[in-house]
């Protein structure tokens, strides 16, 4: 991280993106720019830092992140990276992610630009026809591993996963995969498009969240390969059947308690909101409030279509507005990110972290069961009986919150 210390400190190991490799990403490396560097430029410091790091850890490649101040003082990242790459013999890739350039979306694009430089730099002759890349999954709590296992059971080879449990060597040959499956469109759609344009490999949009979206995504992939492997559809159907068989009894048990309860959903991108609405229906729950920070006009039109009449749909709401909606609808559980969690709790409402701080996998079929378990645990917690506002509600309803598990 080329910038002042904070940029590195705040991003140090805050995401539960699991790795089966060296765990080097869990250390934090920074040039810790000081006033002197701002005045005279940070290039010499960056070069020295990179040389030392690469010598010590011998990575396959290095990514160098630019920050606000680096963009402002005009350090030539490209030149430093080229120089270090020449000296060390590994790819050293600048990520032009200056904070003022825009939101996370622009950061994703900067990362895709950097990663695309690696694509196409290794031999792909041994990659089979039935092969895919997993894009836009971060392996939070090991989710990529779950998806990868499904795909392998379908008879597919996974060439690269980007970026969850990703490898430089895999990225180099990712252009050899027949299909790119893109989740979380904001993050890696650009990379998929670049590969499509240069190497002619198509992509499809998928979601690994919730029963329908999970199954639909697998069927979509199976469909794609159906003419190459006539058996793949049958294997996929069998996979979906056996996975559902495994989770449906568990879901039914949770549903018994959750039937009729209400949820509020406030997430980053709208794609997740769609999956969550469907997931809550499986639990017999109604999504009474739904919103996103980055949804488009089309997203909201679609949300209005898939939700029940009377559902409050919000765009980029502030906490005071969220509070009003939650109280108005008297919801039982809130789904959001790190900053919303304590707000939900202050209101005496259950919470499910559906963001990068989640500790259990919510993707895949097993993820749906985990989701149900997590929602159940929070909604049914006896602690809410001690909350003044909800206490009154329970009294009015003439019954205590059920302790039946």
């Amino acid at each position, binding site marked *: 991280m080329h910038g002042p210390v*904070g940029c590195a400190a705040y991003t140090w190991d805050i995401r539960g993106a699991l790795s089966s490799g060296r*765990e080097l990403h869990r250390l934090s*490396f920074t040039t810790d720019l000081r006033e002197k560097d*701002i005045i005279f430029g940070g290039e010499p410091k960056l070069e020295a*830092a990179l040389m030392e790091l690469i010598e010590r850890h011998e990575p396959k490649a290095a990514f160098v992140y630019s920050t*606000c101040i680096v963009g402002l003082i005009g350090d030539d990242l490209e030149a430093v990276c080229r120089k270090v790459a020449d000296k060390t013999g590994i790819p050293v890739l600048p990520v032009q992610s200056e*904070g003022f350039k825009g939101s996370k979306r622009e950061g994703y694009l900067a990362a895709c630009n950097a990663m695309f430089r690696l694509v196409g730099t290794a031999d792909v002759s041994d990659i089979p026809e039935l092969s895919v890349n997993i894009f836009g999954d971060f392996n939070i709590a090991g989710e990529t591993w779950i998806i990868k296992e499904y795909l392998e059971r379908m008879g597919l080879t996974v060439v690269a996963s980007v970026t969850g449990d990703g490898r430089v060597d895999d990225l180099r040959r990712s252009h050899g995969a027949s299909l790119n499956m893109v989740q979380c469109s904001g993050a890696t759609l650009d990379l998929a498009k670049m590969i499509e344009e240069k190497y002619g490999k198509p992509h499809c949009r998928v979601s690994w969240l919730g029963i329908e979206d999970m199954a639909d995504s697998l069927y979509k992939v199976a469909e794609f390969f159906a003419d190459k492997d006539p058996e793949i559809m049958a294997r996929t159907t069998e996979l979906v059947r056996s996975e559902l068989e495994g989770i449906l009894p568990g879901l039914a048990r949770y549903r018994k308690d959750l039937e009729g309860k209400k949820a509020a959903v406030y997430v980053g991108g709208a794609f997740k909101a769609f999956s969550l609405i469907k997931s809550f229906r499986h639990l017999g729950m109604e999504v009474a409030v739904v919103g996103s920070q980055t949804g488009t006009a089309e997203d909201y039109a679609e949300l209005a279509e898939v939700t029940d009449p009377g559902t409050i749909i919000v765009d980029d709401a502030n906490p005071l507005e969220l509070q009003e909606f939650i109280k108005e609808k008297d919801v039982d559980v809130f789904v959001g990110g790190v900053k919303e969690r*304590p707000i939900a709790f*202050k209101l005496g409402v259950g919470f499910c972290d559906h963001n990068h701080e989640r500790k259990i996998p919510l993707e895949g079929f097993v993820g749906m069961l985990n989701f149900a378990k997590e929602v159940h645990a929070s909604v049914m917690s006896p602690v809410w009986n001690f909350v003044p506002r909800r206490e009154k509600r329970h009294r009015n309803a003439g019954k205590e919150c059920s302790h039946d598990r």
Partner: protein
Amino acid sequence: MTLLRHTPKEITERKALAINPAKTCQPIGAMYAALGIHGCLPHSHGSQGCCAYHRSTLTRHYKEPISAATSSFTEGASVFGGQANLLQAANNIFSVYEPEVIAVHTTCLSETIGDDLKQIITKARKDGKIPEGKEMLGASTPSYVGSHVTGFSNMVKSMVSTFAKNTNERNGKVNIIPGWVEPADMEEVKRIAAMMGVDITLFPDTSGVLNGPLSGEYRMFPEGGVTIEELKDSGNAIGTMALGEWCSADAARWLDSNCKVPCTVLDMPFGLKATDRFVDTLRVIAGTSVPDSLAHERGQLVDMISDMHQYTFGKKVAIWGDPDQLISMCEFLVSMDMWPVHVVTGTPGKRFEARIREITKDLPFDINVKAGGDMFLLHQWIKNEPVDLLIGNSYGKYIARDEDTPLIRWGFPILDRVGHQYFPTLGYKGGLRLLEKMLNAILDRKDRDDPEETFELVL
């Protein structure tokens, strides 16, 4: 697994590279300090990422809602200056969220493009962006100077330099600037002052703001915090006690030179001796005496130290964090015959190293101490000279796991445990809690590691 097994024992000098920082940048300190003003919305004058990261970190540390706003710099603002963004933000914030006061801090970006907060705030006032009876203050907090501690100090100084007035009516109160301590510690300062019958103005004061109850309501501006009226009146106090040279001295000295309020800079009252000095100074400034109840608490702390000193003697400790806290903690350790052998702060400044060397000069060996160090260096030191106990923030858990050494979480941030919001470690009572934590860690380890024949019921 190879988690953190990336730390080699051999230490080579690094000039250009920091690994696993033991500090962060100024703005978050300014944000934390500002939350200690009643009805205050902190505002980050920079790109939106800064504000999001500070809020997330404070949320994880306190498990409380953290409200703050941002100027959301774009490429345009970075070229033409952020004045328009800030004026617009002030307008929106006062009309939508209705805080009493907005506390603005800069970032590396707004500092470097040369935004002048004082001028922008004056313009905001002139243009009617600040409603009648509302306030706005600003602190310059460039991320590439000092550390998060510096940012805290700069915002606290701005609290007095913006508001404090000497109106020639001494109010009989003592200003206490507690420094970057937890809400529970700030509560403890108020409790001790009340025991001694001293009327104080404590600022900043995050108690009641960041350790509130679950009420069923979300309040953007909870009960707690020092009021603007109190800050104005701090210029009429009979004296100021600054707890911590790094965190609090600048504000106290400003009051001394500009409002003629005499200041005393003390170490933070962690541990026996530093608490003694705190109590004694407060007694002298306020012209009061130490009540038996407080002497009783002191006696209890000395009692527990004596009861258990056979287990603390000679225990080696590695400790990291912020300068003011480390100075007092090292003194506490040494006073219990424990040995702080490795001491790291990320905050630069040679004075720190000199202070720690002074405190540890009677130990039977030279200790390792570094200002402007990082967790990687600390880990290397520990590999070369293992310790019995680690004391510091949550980032020590990698070392604790790798070296199989117990860790006491103390400092900022604590991202994986609770308690710091509610239980003070400051004062005599806080000393008891610190000692209890140390003994539990040491004795749990002893019980785990003792062979069966020396495993004992009574310790």
